């Protein structure tokens, strides 16, 4: 149905979006790549020339690198496990017949709409504070010594805060998938005497596998660049420095742009490995 004329009109209509995104991608990326090969210290002499792969080697071998990778993996992994497992359970529960289903769903989804700086600060001060936090009141009420969560178990505390923010996302997507489960098949399996657990393993889980994969991939991409939550709680102290935060510190705090840019290139490569898998799934869906 498309004529030559409508084809060129279509190309014209696409142009602004394509050109803008192309610029948004290429210009900063080229600059980062360029800086990563230079010794560039804006506050201490500026651009001091070409250094080859020096920044890459130095970023990779610095004492902060591996701990930051480890922190990143624990943070992302921890949040993924918590949100996916609880998300599946919550989605299955919310799918059951009950009174006030819509209202409960509203309560469960709410944390997703809270801005990151608010949720991090509310948790940090009003719940996890060792003196006045609600948890410390609870701990004292049962006779235990209050815990200084963000300095004693900083990474665990961050995982809790971030999981609280992302659980609604996982639940919502898994719930959408659960609702498309085949009722008759489930009932047939029930009649045949399949236990709840075996129905879950052989019917529910396979049905949810696609949604689970999507939740994992999308969350991973967002979680790899978690910033504000760390910025307002620990500021990267107490082993909560993720790769993203380390790069941020190199670039803006210690103003070593060359080194930070090399780190940025690592982060971009890491994100792209995850992205490739996500794109495959999304791309397959386009063909349908």
């Amino acid at each position, binding site marked *: *149905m498309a004529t030559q004329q*409508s084809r060129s009109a*279509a190309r014209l*209509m*696409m142009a*602004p979006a394509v050109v*803008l*995104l192309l610029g*948004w*991608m290429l210009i900063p990326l080229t600059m*980062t790549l360029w800086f990563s090969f230079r010794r560039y210290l804006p506050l201490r002499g500026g651009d001091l020339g070409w250094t080859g792969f020096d920044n890459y080697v130095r970023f990779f071998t610095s004492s902060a690198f591996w701990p930051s990778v480890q922190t990143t993996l624990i943070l992302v992994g921890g949040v993924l496990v918590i949100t996916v497992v609880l998300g599946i359970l919550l989605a299955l*529960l*919310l799918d*059951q*017949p*009950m*009174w*006030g289903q819509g*209202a409960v769903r*509203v*309560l*469960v*989804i*709410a944390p997703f709409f*809270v*801005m990151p*700086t*608010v949720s991090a*600060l*509310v*948790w*940090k*001060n*009003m719940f996890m504070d060792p003196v*006045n936090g*609600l948890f410390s*009141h609870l701990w004292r009420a049962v006779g235990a010594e209050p815990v200084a969560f963000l300095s004693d178990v900083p990474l665990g505390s961050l995982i809790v805060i971030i999981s609280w923010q992302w*659980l609604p*996302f996982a639940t*919502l*997507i898994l719930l959408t998938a659960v609702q498309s*489960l085949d009722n008759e098949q*489930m009932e047939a399996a029930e009649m045949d005497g399949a236990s709840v657990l075996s129905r879950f393993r052989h019917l529910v889980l396979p049905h949810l596998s*696609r*949604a689970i994969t999507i939740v994992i991939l999308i969350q991973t*991409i967002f979680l790899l*660049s978690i*910033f*504000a939550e760390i910025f307002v*709680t620990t500021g990267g102290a107490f082993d909560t420095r993720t790769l993203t935060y380390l*790069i941020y510190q190199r*670039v803006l705090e210690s103003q070593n742009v060359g080194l930070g840019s090399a780190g*940025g290139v690592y982060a*971009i490569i890491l*994100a*792209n490995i995850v992205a490739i898998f996500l*794109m495959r799934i999304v791309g397959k*869906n*386009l*063909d349908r």
Partner: protein
Amino acid sequence: MARAVTPKQKAINTGLAWTIGLLIFFPILWTILTSFKTEAEAIASPPVFLNFSWTLENYAIVQERSDYLRFLWNSVIIAGGSTILGVIIAVPAAWSMAFVPSRRTKDILLWMLSTKMLPAVGVLYPIYLIFIQLGLLDSRIGLVVILMLINLPIIVWMLYTYFREIPGEILEAARMDGAGLREEILYVLTPMAVPGIASTVLLSFILAWNEAFWTLNLTAANAAPLTAFIASYSSPEGLFYAKLSAASTMAIAPILILGWFSQKQLVRGLTFGAVK
């Protein structure tokens, strides 16, 4: 897969779901309640739940001390501006991809999505440098552009999935009746696309409102939106829980309300149409 169950089972489901729902919602509820307490009541031990002397003074103090309305206005301008700009650019693009698809449409869509995967910190310094050069640092217009670019892939994708559901036959019929490209878009497509565009606007606005990497790193006193305003509470002075709560409540209330309207579209928008 909702099925018929016994009333007893339904009561158990209800009790369990409400308990968990209220637990998850509790931090927000607690923040809202604390915002109406005095600072002394906010740290009272044991904590007071409802039996305190309700007051609005924290809201007045937050506005008076830090000119809360200015940050709110910045948030509105930045989130609203980036959304409007994004939709204006995305509607024609999504329209052409949905109705005049070519061999490369799929590749373009996936490539657009891939720009969303770029970790912000990887391009922090270049953007910082460009902003300094162009005098955009700590300006609202700079953030409008950045947040528009960040959300553009999601806006295009969401609009594309909505537009694709509009049956092509309607367009053909309109063309048979002699409608040109302009009439086609204005009188046939737009009315059918309004619900899709509305939910896209909503999601984009929410995402921009809550964005907290660029808004924290590219603003100072002038253009700082609510995300940055709240972050200033991370180094507290004295008693501040009630004031933090009042500021937080004001920052999240508009989005909580908008968010509840958009929960269905959220799935589609955030999974790029992969889960519907």
